[in-house]
């Protein structure tokens, strides 16, 4: 019996959609899954508490590798802090697009925190660069051998460009970690997929644990209607987004709508990241959905006609406009600035297209707060309309169930969700799939027992000999096989008894069973023998039954001899003798003979 354990780090992943950072121990290997930052905090609590991993000793010695599922900061934001400030020099794995985009978002965030808010004790640009040097990029489905025993494999996750799920495997034991994923293809990405890899444990996000979201089309129509109405009445629409991800999907949506309706109101996209972001999508187009990939030579979906770069001065321009601004949770930067300018006018609208963590302005206005306390004790009154539209590409309950069906895990562990919703999903999973489902709290270690099969080398000679014996192999019937298990030099081998004896220098001892069966038969001994012979031959059609010159019968290697009873000549004694190896056939024969001989035989 062996086990694997899972530990959610700090006020992180488990039961709070704050950040992801999970430690998995599997067959003696320690793997850290994601290294996220909590956007709702501005102090120490923003990073995971890595002292949970090991109190003494270096992280590099303790961790075998780190895996980053995608470029969102709640999954990779603490990486430079972890590798450069706490200190980790081992390998960090992520996909190519994540490796390309991750440092840009980190640098962007660093600038907001350090340059704008003037915080110290934060990682530097150089640290981001040094950290990225430790990153090894992986292909989808590539099996990466981290060391001789530990291997990892990435699967497409859909959520954002380059997002991946990871399988972590040591010997026969495995864990699949989903990161964030999306089971329905959207306007720019495909759906997540994993093969039937039957992991011992599936660690899945559960952001939308209870939601079965209405059809995507409806949500899109709703979104376009709201934007259109606001623009028609001369209002301004603010859409806080992250530079990469949902932004591109919504841009494609608005671009086609503007084209179709021949609208004139300007659409802007803030920050210098825009063009760069779209460029990433163009160069990593193989990670987008089928339709975009197929048509990119004729028309690249990421070259927008109606969407222009935003300048800070535009915010004060009169008349309607639509502005995409970063960051997505209104916690800092340009989106917050524009929000402050426009919040006072009821004609305007802010549309939150994704989830906001607790503590952010986005979360506050979504939970109905209309008076916000800003920095410097200023009170901001929100008169503009606040709309929430879930466009963030997480799997809903249906999607999570679908993934479980695909992977067929033996255990499921829910992370990255809210406790109440997770409880509901947990029950549903246990009911439908009859597997254990866990939802650990922060800092709680979950231990899962596994029952791995033991790989054994079988000698080919033995295998061929054993399959050749007796009947033609029938796949539907189990078959007995005799062999000797040798445990030598830390490996298991199954060999023939003769070979084992030879290798170990032992002499063979034979164990024979002998059994006497009494039959009533007044005839002479050799006639009884003949009757027995004919009977057995009739019943055991597939075995070799032989009548030997010395008067005995053999069935395969089992010997049968008949003698008259010393006291009662009408009773014949059948001596049945077989070796331990033929136990099955031997006991079958004795039972058969005990029933007596059929009357009609002559």
């Amino acid at each position, binding site marked *: 019996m062996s086990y694997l354990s899972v530990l959610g780090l700090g006020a992180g992943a488990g039961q709070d959609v704050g950040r992801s950072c999970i430690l998995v121990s599997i067959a003696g290997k320690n793997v850290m899954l994601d290294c996220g930052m909590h956007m709702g905090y501005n102090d120490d609590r923003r990073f995971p508490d890595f002292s949970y991993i090991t109190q003494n000793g270096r992280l590099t010695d303790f961790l075998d590798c780190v895996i980053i599922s995608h470029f969102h900061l709640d999954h990779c934001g603490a990486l430079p802090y972890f590798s450069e400030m706490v200190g980790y020099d081992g390998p960090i794995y992520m996909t190519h697009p994540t490796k*390309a985009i991750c440092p840009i978002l980190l640098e962007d965030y660093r600038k907001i925190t350090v340059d704008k808010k003037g915080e110290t004790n934060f990682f530097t640009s150089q640290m981001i660069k040094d950290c990225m040097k430790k990153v090894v990029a992986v292909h989808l489905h590539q*099996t990466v051998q981290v060391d001789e025993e530990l291997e990892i494999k990435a699967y497409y996750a859909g959520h954002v460009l380059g997002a991946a799920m990871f399988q972590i495997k040591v010997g026969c034991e495995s864990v699949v970690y989903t990161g964030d994923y999306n089971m329905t293809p959207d306007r720019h990405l495909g759906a997540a997929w994993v093969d039937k890899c039957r992991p011992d444990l599936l660690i899945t996000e559960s952001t939308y644990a209870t939601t079965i979201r209405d059809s995507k089309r409806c949500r899109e129509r709703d979104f376009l209607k709201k934007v259109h109405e606001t623009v028609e009445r001369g209002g301004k629409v603010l859409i806080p987004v992250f530079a990469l991800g949902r932004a591109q999907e919504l841009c494609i949506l608005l671009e086609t709508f503007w084209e179709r309706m021949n609208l004139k109101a300007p659409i802007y996209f803030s920050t210098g990241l825009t063009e760069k972001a779209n460029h990433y999508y163009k*160069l990593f187009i193989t990670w987008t959905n089928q339709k975009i990939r197929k048509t990119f030579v004729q028309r690249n979906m990421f070259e927008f006609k109606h969407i222009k770069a935003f300048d800070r001065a535009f915010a004060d321009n009169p008349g309607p406009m639509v502005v995409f601004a970063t960051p997505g949770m209104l916690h800092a930067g340009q989106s917050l600035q524009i929000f402050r300018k426009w919040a006072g006018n009821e004609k305007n609208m802010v549309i939150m297209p994704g989830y906001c963590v607790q503590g952010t302005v986005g979360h506050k206005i979504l939970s109905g707060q209309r008076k916000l306390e800003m920095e410097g004790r200023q009170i901001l009154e929100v008169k503009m309309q606040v709309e929430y539209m879930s466009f963030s590409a997480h799997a809903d309950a249906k999607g999570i169930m679908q993934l479980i069906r695909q992977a067929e895990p033996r255990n499921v562990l829910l992370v990255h969700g809210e406790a109440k919703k997770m409880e509901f999903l947990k029950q549903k999973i246990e009911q439908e799939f009859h597997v254990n489902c866990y939802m650990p709290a922060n800092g709680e270690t979950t231990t899962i027992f596994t029952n791995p099969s033991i790989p054994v080398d079988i*000698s080919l000679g033995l295998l061929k000999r054993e399959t050749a014996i007796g009947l033609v192999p029938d796949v539907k019937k189990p078959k007995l096989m005799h062999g000797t298990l040798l445990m030598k030099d830390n490996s298991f*081998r199954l060999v023939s008894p003769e070979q084992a004896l030879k290798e170990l220098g032992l002499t063979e001892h034979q164990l024979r069973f002998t059994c006497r069966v009494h039959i009533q038969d007044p005839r002479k001994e050799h006639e009884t023998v003949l009757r027995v012979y004919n009977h057995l031959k009739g019943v055991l059609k597939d075995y070799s039954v032989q009548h030997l010159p010395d008067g005995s019968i053999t069935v395969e290697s089992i010997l049968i001899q008949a003698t008259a009873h010393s006291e009662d000549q009408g009773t014949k004694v059948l001596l049945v003798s077989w070796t331990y190896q033929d136990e099955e056939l031997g006991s079958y024969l004795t039972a058969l003979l005990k029933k007596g001989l059929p009357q009609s035989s002559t």
Partner: protein
Amino acid sequence: LFQYCLSGHPTLPCNVLKFKSTTIMLDCGLDMTSTLNFLPLPLVQSPRLSRLPGWVLKDGSTFLDKELKECSGHVFVDSVPEFCLPETELLDLSTVDVILISNYHCMMALPYITEYTGFTGTVYATEPTVQIGRLLMEELVNSIERVPKAQSASMWKNKEVQRLLPAPLKDAVEVSMWRKCYTMPEVNAALSKIQLVGYSQKIELFGAVQVTPLSSGYALGSSNWIIQSHYEKVSYVSGSSLLTTHPQPMDQASLKNSDVLILTGLTQIPTANPDGMVGEFCSNLAMTVRNGGNVLVPCYPSGVIYDLLECLYQYIDSAGLSNVPFYFISPVANSSLEFSQIFAEWLCHNKQTKVYLPEPPFPHAELIQTNKLKHYPSIHGDFSNDFKQPCVVFTGHPSLRFGDVVHFMELWGKSSLNTVIFTEPDFSYLDALAPYQPLAMKCVYCPIDTRLNFIQVSKLLKEVQPLHVVCPEQYTQPPPTQSHRTDLMIDCQPPPMSYRRAEVLTLPYKRRYEKIEIMPDVS
């Protein structure tokens, strides 16, 4: 463990491996050298070609003069060009379970196999291999279908007749098996049977065998394959390169500990150094243009052309060629240039780093932006309006038998100012030029073949130490034209097992153990 050898062409292999009751086809290359026996297909009526005299037998009989034409002492078949297929009779191809493709040049026979033999299995290839392979097939089908030819010659194929023909027609093998080009619907059907794989992905076949593609460094997405069970390992090395060009470097370490290593796709020009050839290419190109001539580069729409464009990008300003237009003409020119930019994960480290910036990995994006390189689907349409001379034209097909290149050969062949530069190594340039003789145009031969040469092979074999090496017979002796060059053959211990077309080899291996799993409660 058996190997059925269906192709005798060392760089366009097609082998079938029977391994633990699975039947695995390794590549299905299409030998296109057969097309050299045919007359070119001109895009516009060529008076010269239509005036060629019919061929007359020595005894004066003229019954073949409709099918065979003579040009400068060579005889050509006047018919739709045909290709030499891999052997289809050696074993029942409908029993093939999987086909493993190593690079886009080695999949050109795929539609013949998947659509005509009752094949029901799966094909495995990397994404760039499939996308670029599709482009190559599209170009091939397009350039043949766009010039419909009424005549389909078959009389000359009669064994009795073929015996009377001059070389090389007389010696052509299996002419009865030569086939016309497939169609686009067949290409699409064949490609739909492909399952995409990534480098180092382990693919289980029926739980018995595991196959894994490895980077081979030769072309975008090109791979070598490991075919293994728990105790046997066969490495299939096909079209590999150790030079630093655009693709991801070759993965050599994973080839170690093989029981058998099948070695195909070595360089076809073992005596030429690719770097030197690129230099010669540039200087010949510059010289011709400076003298007011045009340069024609017959090429495939993908592969070495990316490297040539990159060299020219660095070269043209210093050589004072900034105002010379470069044209790339192919029905798939635009797609090829676009596709080359989106396979970041399959490129060498330098190019990957560029994508992270994010910048396009190949500088031809800039050549297009600055209007130095223009691409057109064909010589018809926009091209005829934009066409300015002197210029440099990249176009296909390298055999000079079909495609837009035929037009430029006819157009520029009469002037000694112009130059045709051969860079693709697949066809003998003299044979390619034969139906255009007499020719005034200059011909330069700069074959660029980045695949392994014999020095690199022996280093590789020393490094990975396979127990046995299997290779085409051509590699076990010096080239016929340079019989004294004993360095131009594979040298290893034990000596390699060689194969030729239509042979079946029994590969040596001995396994003593098999892997099983026992349930924990049994132990």
